[in-house]
């Protein structure tokens, strides 16, 4: 099978979340954005003693750092052996269809969006994994506010940024 249906993915992801939350598993939520400033601290050689934020994220950052290494391996293995979609590419098909054919435009926008995405995630205290999946599963009000804001901003941007009216 070249891909899993959404409902199988949802059931598996719920199972993984519960395993991560469980005291027999990791006894913590599953998050995936704290590792970015954590790695930024390592790559730009910041002294963790000097920056209060690096002190705050010492434990979750390291935990998610290891999770990230696993995710890279998992994604690589399934893309080569199961979906057979591994290929080097610079510009997504959907970008070509609804935005433009310029590689430079795609790379510049990716860079800018990547930058603000991490600022946004860290300001809100989580991302799709930490807030939307882990937080909403605990019925946390903060995650519902985050989820609502993201959905609104996502759909408005999708409408304005892309030419969805097909030529």
């Amino acid at each position, binding site marked *: 099978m070249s891909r899993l249906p959404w409902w199988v993915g949802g059931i598996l992801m719920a199972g993984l979340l519960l395993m991560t939350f469980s005291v027999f598993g990791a006894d913590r939520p599953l998050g995936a954005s704290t590792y*970015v400033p954590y*790695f930024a601290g390592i790559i730009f050689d*910041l002294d963790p003693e000097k920056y209060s934020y690096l002190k705050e994220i010492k434990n979750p950052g390291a935990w998610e750092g290891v999770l990230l290494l696993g995710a890279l391996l998992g994604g690589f293995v399934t893309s080569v052996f199961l979906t057979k979609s591994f290929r080097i590419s610079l510009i997504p098909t959907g970008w070509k269809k609804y935005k433009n054919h310029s590689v430079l435009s795609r790379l510049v926008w990716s860079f800018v969006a990547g930058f603000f995405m991490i600022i946004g995630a860290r300001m809100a205290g989580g991302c799709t994994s930490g807030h939307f999946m882990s937080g909403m599963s605990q019925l946390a009000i903060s995650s519902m506010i985050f989820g609502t804001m993201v959905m609104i901003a996502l759909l408005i941007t999708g409408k304005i940024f892309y030419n969805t009216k097909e030529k």
Partner: protein
Amino acid sequence: MDIIVKTAGDDFPSRIAQMFETVIHQGHGSLVLVFLIGVIFGGIIQYTRVDKFEKIAGFAMLKDTIVPKMLFLTVGLASIGLYFMIEAGWAHYHIKPVMWGGLIIGGTLFGISMAILGKCPGTGPVSIAEGRIDVLVGAIGGLLGGLVFTLYYEDFFKPLMGEVAGKWTLPSFFQGHEHLVVLIFGVVVTLIAILIPKVEFFDEEDLKKLPECERPDLKEAS
């Protein structure tokens, strides 16, 4: 011969070693387990194809609804399961606080960026693992974002995020009816996942590599 790993330094290899050490000592699962959770996480994301630009930016354009369907189903099922696990003492709450500035400004920035990049911090690395160079450039932007956030956290971002208003959950507003609230929430969210109309935006570049019998777009049509 003993292998001695120096983890006291502040060069790149020792800081990576310190990362592993921190995970080993913090009591949130063994190193192998955390890595394995990552492998499964990446595997599920990749195998369901929700790491694709066409799925995430496609949802922003309302050309694809697989991402919200899968997300809502995950939340619906996990919320009920998690509640009973916590009741049984098998799990604990880890509620993130409400900080109005952080959630509203952060959520808005996040949503805009997610529509443009077509990835989020969990799906992005998976995309890079399948060879998407544009996402790698996005990740470099993200690392710089993380750097700026760390450098100006105390002076700029923390005041902008605001004070912690509270660590509320939905059931805490319905004292005495917690079970019912969780159950209704779980069922409603699961129903939303099922009821969102299924729309798919396929990437021809991926599909043309597959034999015809495995192409999901042809299967749907027949």
